[in-house]
C-alpha cells in the first residue's frame, strides 16, 4: 500500500504525462470479406496496426468460431466458421496477443446467398455481394436485370471507419449522341440523409421504369478507398421495412435524445435512477390541436402530428404553485433535421417562460446562436395559467410524420448519463493506468453515487484518483445554458495499479464497472453494469 501511495503521488505530479502516454496497442481497421453466411466456413483478412504476433481471435457470439491462420504487422488471416444456427446481423470481433486485446470491429452474418465481387457479376434480389475498394478512387460495377415496375433496393454496408459508401444505379445511355457504350446515372444515394448521428451507409430504392439490364456502381465518397475499405451489397425486391432516420445510439442512456421513448414507465425509470424504489403514477395524456383545447395536468404527455407547414399546437397548462419543471420531447417518427420541434411555454401575458431553444452568443461578433434540445428544465415562478405551444422551427415544413410527444413534469432528481469511454483496457505490468468515468447529475440530484470496479485480474488494484481538471473559457454569453445541459458533470477517476510481477494475461479478462446511487444511506439498484475486456501485458515499445 505504501508503494502504491507513492506511485499515485508520482502519477499526480506528472499530471497525466505517464497516464496519457500513448501505448502502441493493436488496432483492427477492416474485415474482408465483411459478411459471412450462416452454415459456412470461409477465410477472412483483417487489417490494422500492431498486429504482429497476435495469437487468436475473440468473438462473443454463440455458433461462431474464428481461427487465426496467419499474423502479420498490418493484417491477420483467419478462418471463420458459422454454425447454421447463428443469428444474422452485426457481430464484433477482437484479436488477442501479447500486446493485448484489440478494439472490437464489426462484421456481419447474412442468410442470403453470398458471392464475392467479380467483373460483370449479375445481381439479383436476395443476393449479397462481398466487395472492397482496395484503392482510392476504385469503383465496383455490377449488372442487374430488372423488370418494368420492379422495385429494387440496394443497400451497401461498409466496414471499418475509412469508407463512406455510395451506390449509384446506371442505365444505358441510349440517348447519348457521343457514345454507344455509355451509361448514365439513373439514381444515386450516398446516404439517405447526412446528419450527425445518422448512418452513412448507402441505401437506394428505385422503381424501374423500363425492363432491361442496369448497372450498379459502388464507390466511396469523394474517392475513398484503401486497405480495410470492405463492404457488402445487399439486393432486395421492394422497399424493405419502413425505417425512420434515427441517430445511432452511442451510449446506453440517451436522456437528451429526441428518439428516446417517453412512453411506458419512463417516469419510473427516472425515479429509479434517483434511487427511488417505487414507481410513480403514469402521466396524463392529451392530444395537441391547433384550437388549443384541453388542459394538461402534470405530469402529462401532450402528443400530436404537425401535418402541414406552419402548424402549431397549443394547450393550456394550469400551475397551482411555483415549481421546478422539466420538458422532455420525443420525435418517434421523423426527427432532426427533418422535424425540428420547438416547444415554448408562455404566461398569461404571452411572455415566453421557457423554450427548448437554447440561445447563446458566440465569441465571434456576438451573434446569436440557437439550438433545440430534447430536454429543458426551468422554474415556474408563480401559479397561474400558462400556454404550451409545439411547432416546427421552420414555417415551410410539416407532414404527418412530424409526430411529437412532449412530457411536462415536475423535476425528478436522478443520475443521468454515465459513460466509460474505453472500449478495452490493456494494462502494462508495473504501470498505473487512469480510467475516468463521466457521470451527469440531472435535475438537482444531490445524493452520493458509488462506482466500483470488480473482477480485476490478479495483481491489479484500483484506488480513487484525481486528474487535472479541464479548464475551458466560458462563452461570453452562454444564455441559460443550465436549462439545456446537465446541471453537474462529475468524473470518477480510477487508478489501476498493475504490480511489476502481475501475471501477464493469456486471455481476455472481463471485469466490470458498477454504478449505484445511494439513497437514504442505502445502495439503490445499479444504473450501470458494464463488462469490458482487459489484459495485463508486458511493457510496449
Amino acid at each position, binding site marked *: 500500500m505504501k508503494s502504491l501511495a507513492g506511485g499515485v503521488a508520482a502519477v499526480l505530479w506528472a499530471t497525466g504525462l505517464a497516464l496519457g502516454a500513448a501505448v502502441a496497442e493493436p488496432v483492427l481497421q477492416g474485415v474482408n470479406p465483411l459478411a459471412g453466411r450462416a452454415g459456412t466456413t470461409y477465410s477472412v483478412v483483417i487489417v490494422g496496426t500492431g498486429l504482429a504476433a497476435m495469437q487468436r481471435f475473440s468473438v462473443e457470439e454463440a455458433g461462431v468460431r474464428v481461427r487465426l491462420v496467419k499474423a502479420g504487422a498490418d493484417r491477420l488471416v483467419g478462418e471463420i466458421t458459422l454454425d447454421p444456427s447463428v443469428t444474422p446481423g452485426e457481430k464484433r470481433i477482437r484479436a488477442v496477443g501479447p500486446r493485448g486485446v484489440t478494439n472490437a470491429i464489426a462484421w456481419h452474418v447474412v442468410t442470403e446467398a453470398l458471392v464475392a465481387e467479380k467483373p460483370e457479376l449479375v445481381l439479383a434480389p436476395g443476393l449479397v455481394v462481398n466487395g472492397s475498394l482496395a484503392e482510392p*478512387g476504385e469503383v465496383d460495377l455490377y449488372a442487374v436485370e430488372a423488370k418494368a415496375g420492379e422495385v429494387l433496393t440496394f443497400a451497401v454496408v461498409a466496414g471499418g471507419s*475509412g469508407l463512406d459508401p455510395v451506390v449509384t444505379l446506371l442505365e444505358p445511355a441510349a*440517348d447519348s449522341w457521343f457514345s454507344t457504350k455509355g451509361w448514365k446515372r439513373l439514381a444515386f444515394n*450516398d446516404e439517405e440523409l447526412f446528419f450527425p448521428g445518422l448512418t452513412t451507409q448507402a441505401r437506394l430504392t428505385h422503381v424501374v421504369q423500363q425492363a432491361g439490364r442496369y448497372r450498379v456502381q459502388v464507390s466511396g*465518397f469523394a474517392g475513398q478507398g484503401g486497405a480495410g475499405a470492405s463492404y457488402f451489397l445487399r439486393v432486395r425486391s421492394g422497399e424493405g421495412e419502413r425505417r425512420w432516420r434515427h441517430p445511432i445510439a452511442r451510449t446506453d442512456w440517451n436522456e437528451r435524445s429526441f428518439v428516446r421513448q417517453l412512453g411506458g414507465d419512463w417516469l419510473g425509470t427516472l425515479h429509479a435512477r434517483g434511487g427511488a424504489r417505487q414507481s410513480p403514477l403514469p402521466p396524463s395524456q392529451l392530444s395537441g390541436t391547433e384550437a388549443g383545447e384541453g388542459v394538461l395536468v402534470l405530469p402529462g404527455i401532450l402528443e400530436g402530428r404537425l401535418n402541414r407547414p406552419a402548424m402549431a399546437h397549443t394547450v393550456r397548462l394550469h400551475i397551482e404553485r411555483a415549481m421546478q419543471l422539466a420538458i422532455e420531447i420525443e420525435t418517434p417518427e421523423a426527427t432532426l433535421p427533418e422535424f*425540428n420541434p420547438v416547444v415554448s411555454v408562455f404566461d398569461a401575458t404571452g411572455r415566453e417562460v421557457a423554450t427548448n431553444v437554447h440561445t447563446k452568443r458566440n465569441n465571434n461578433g456576438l451573434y*446569436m446562436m440557437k*439550438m433545440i434540445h430534447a430536454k429543458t428544465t426551468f422554474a415556474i415562478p408563480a401559479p397561474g395559467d400558462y400556454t404550451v405551444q409545439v411547432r416546427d*422551427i421552420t414555417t415551410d415544413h410539416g407532414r404527418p410524420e412530424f409526430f411529437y410527444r412532449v412530457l411536462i413534469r415536475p423535476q425528478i432528481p436522478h443520475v443521468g448519463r454515465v459513460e466509460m469511454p474505453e472500449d478495452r483496457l490493456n494494462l502494462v505490468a508495473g504501470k498505473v493506468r487512469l480510467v475516468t468515468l463521466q457521470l451527469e447529475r440531472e435535475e438537482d440530484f444531490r445524493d452520493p453515487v458509488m462506482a466500483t470496479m470488480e473482477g480485476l485480474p490478479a495483481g491489479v488494484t484500483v484506488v480513487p484518483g484525481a486528474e487535472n481538471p479541464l479548464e475551458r473559457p466560458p462563452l461570453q454569453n452562454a444564455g441559460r445554458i443550465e436549462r439545456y445541459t446537465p446541471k453537474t458533470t462529475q468524473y470518477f477517476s480510477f487508478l489501476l495499479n498493475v504490480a511489476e510481477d502481475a501475471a501477464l494475461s493469456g486471455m481476455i479478462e472481463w471485469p466490470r464497472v458498477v454504478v449505484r446511487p445511494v439513497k437514504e444511506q442505502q445502495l439503490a439498484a445499479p444504473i450501470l453494469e458494464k463488462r469490458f475486456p482487459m489484459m495485463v501485458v508486458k511493457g510496449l515499445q
Partner: protein
Amino acid sequence: MKGLWLLALATVVWNAEPVAVRLVPSEFRLYRAGAAQQFVFAAEYADGSTRDVTDAAQWAASSVAGTVSESGRMTARWAGAVEVTAKWGRWQASAQGQVETAGGDEQFRFRSAIGSILTKRGCNSPACHGGVKGRGGLKLSAASLFPLDDYEWIVQGGAYQVLSAQAKGERKPRIDRQNPEASLLLQKATGAVAHGGGKRFAVDSDEYRTILGWVRRGAPFGPAEDETSRVASLEVYPRILSLEKAQKHRLLVTAVMENGRREDVTAQALYLSSDKATAGISEAGVVNAAALGETSILVRAAGQAAAVIVGVIGEPVANYPAVPRQNFIDEFVFEKLRRLRMVPSALSHDAEFLRRVCLDLTGTLPPPGRVEEFVRSRDPKKRERVIDALIGSPEYVDYWTFRFQDLFRVAMFANGINAKWSQMYGEWIRESIVKNKPYDRMAWERLTAQGYDGPTRHFLPYDVIGSPEETMAEEVRVFFGRRLECAQCHNHPYETWSQDQFWGLAAFFGRMFKMGDTGNEYVVFDHPLDEAMGNGDVNGKIQVLHPRTKAELRPTLLDGKTVMATGRENPRKALADWMVQHPYFAEATVNRIWSEFFGRGLVEPVDDFRSTNPATHPELLTRLAEEFRRSGHDLRALMRTMVVSRTYQLSAEPSATNRADRVNYSHALPRPLLAEVLLDAITTVTGVEERFTTTVTAAGNVTQRTPAGMRAIQLREPDVFHSRFLDLYGRPNRLALPERTGKANLGQALHMLAGSIYNEKLGAPEGWLQQQLRGGATDASMLQTLYLTAFGRPPELAESQELLGALAARPDRNEAWKDLVWAILCSREFAENH
C-alpha cells in the same frame, strides 16, 4: 450653326431618297405657359438608317396655343389644342398636342427648378457632389434623385456622413436669404470664391438668375414630391443610333412621372459620351459622329439615367445581301447589322458548327466518327437534329450542372465547410437540370429554402448564415443581373438604387438563422417575429437596422412595397414571388445564357445591368425574355432558340465589313475553352484520363481519388478536388461569384512547356498516341484521327502534306509525334471554341 447642319446633311442626303419620315413625339401635352416640347424630325431610309432633319425642316404651329422655333422646339402660350407640322422637301409630318394650363403658373418645385440646374451643370454628378461622400462637405444626390435631401444640405448646411444621419460639424447654410447674391451656392458656381469644380455658370446666365430668384423668394422647397412630380423613368429617343462620320442627330429626352405624365427634359439633361473620339455630344443633346466605332451616350436628368448606343458606320454596302433568317434572333441581329452597314459572315461550315455546338451545349468534343457522319449527311435538318440530340443528353446534364454549380457557388467552404453539404446542394442543381426544372422554380426554391434541403446549404458560407446584405446582393446579382452592393453604404452613385432600397431588400433575409451549434447540424429557418425563442436570455432582437439612420427596416421590394409577412411566415417567399415575375429576372437569365453561346452578353458584364450599361440589342433582349417567360422559363427551349439561329451558326471567319466587330454578332467570336472543358478535351485527345485527388497526407499518400472516368466538368467542389492545371486556367474557387476571364497568363505558358498535363500524357503507354505507334498505324491515318478529335475537322490537304513531310523528316517517330500532338494541344484552334 444651322448652316453647318445643312452642310452636314447635304453630305449624307446626297443621293438617297428617304422612304418615310417620323416626327417624334407624335402626340404631346404641356401643362403650363412657358413649358416646352422639343421635336425630332427624322428621315428614314431603305437601308434602315435614319437622318435627323430637324434643323432643316420648316416648322409651324396650328394655333396660338404655342409657338415653334426653327429648331423644332415648341413653347406653350395659351390653353388649347395645337398641331405642330414639320416640312422637309416633299415630306411632311404632324404632331397633335394640347396645352392644358396655359396662362397659369405651375407651382415651384425645387427638383425641377433647382435640381435640374445642378444636374445640367454636373454639380450632382458622381464625380462631384453626387459622389458617395459628396465633395467639399456638400453632398447632393445623383441627378437630384432625392431633392429633399439636397434641399436640406443646401438650405441648412452641414457635412454629410456616410454611416450616420447626423450632419458633421456646424451647419452653415449654403444660401443667404438676407443677402442672396452672397449665397455660397452662387459664389462657388460662378467662381467668385475658390471652387474645386471650377466655374459652372456665369453671373448673367439663366441658371444664376433662377437660383438667385429662388433665394430671394425665401428659398422654398415647394410642394412635397408626389406622383405628378416624381420621375418613374427616363426615355430617350432614339435608343440606338447609327450615324455616318460627321453626321449629327438630336436626342429627345422625356421624363415619365409616376402618374404617367410625360415631360420633355431634353434641355435640362446632362449628356456624357463614353468615347468622345467616336461620338461627341453637345450640351443641347446633339450627337456628333466622329470616327468609326460604337459607343454609348449617358443621359442624366430628373434623378434618372439612361443610355443611347451610337454606332458610327462606314460606307454604304453595295448590293447588301439578303441574309436568310432562322428565327427572331436573326431578325434583330441582322437588322442592326444592316443599319450598321456590316454584312454577317457566311454560315459556318458543318464541322465548324458541330464542334462549336458540342462544346457549347455539352462541354465535349464531337467524336471523330460523328464528325465524319455529320459532314457527309445531306439531311437539310441535320443541324437541328444534332441540337436536339445534344440537349438533354448525359453530357448536357453534366455540363449544365457544372455551369450552374459555378453560378450558384457549389464549394465546400461556400456551403457550410462540409463536403457532404456541397454534395447535397450540387445534387439539387443536378436534379433540376436532369428534370429541366423551370428556372423560375429553381430560383424560387433557392431563394426561399428552409430546413435542411440542398439549396439551404448555400446560405451557409464559411459555416455561418451570411449577412442579410451580402446574401441579398448575391441573389440580386444572380437572378436580376444587377449589382446593388454600392447602395449598401450609400445611395448608388450611378444608378437610382438608394440605400433605403438596398436595406429594404436585405431585410427579407434579416430573420434567417441556423439551428445548431456543433458545425454539422445546421437547419435553416426564419426566426418568427412574435416569439422570443430564448432571445431574452441574451438580450437579443430580431431586426435589421438601417446603417445610417439606425431605423428598423421592414422587408421592402425595390418598387417600395413593404411586405408585411407575419411573424410565422417565410418572408423570402414574397420576395421570390416578386423576383421571378419581375422583368429583370427573365432579362438577366436570357442574357446570362446568351453569353454562354455568344461569348458576351447582350449586356456585358452579364451581371451588371444598369441604365448606363445598355444592351447592344435591347429589343432582342426584351423578346428573348418574353419568349423565355412564355415557355415557362424553360432553359432547354431557350438554349435551342439560341443555337438554331443563324446568328449562332455564323462562321468565325470575318468579312471585310465586320472584321472590327466584337459586339454585334456579325461573326462568331473565338472563346477560350473553360479550364475544365479544356482539360477534358486534352484527356479526350490523349486518351489518358486525369485522376483528381482530394486528401493528400503528409507522407504523400493519396487516400482519396476521383473514380476512373470522372471528367473535370463533373468535379463538384474546387476546394475539394485539387488541380494545378484547373487553377492555372481560371477555375474559380467559388468563394465569391465566379468570374472567369479566360485571359492567358505566364503560368499557363510554363505549364504548356513543362506541365504534366501537356507533356506526361503524350508518353503514357495507355494513351492514344503510344497505342497507335505501337500498333503500327500510319502517319496519315493518325493525323486524320488527331485532327478530327482535336479540331473536329479533317486536315486540309496543305496541312497534311506539310505535317506528314515534317514527321517523315524526323529520325525519332515517337518524339516527332509527341511534338506534333503537343503543338496541336497548345494551338488556339484547339484551346478555343470558334
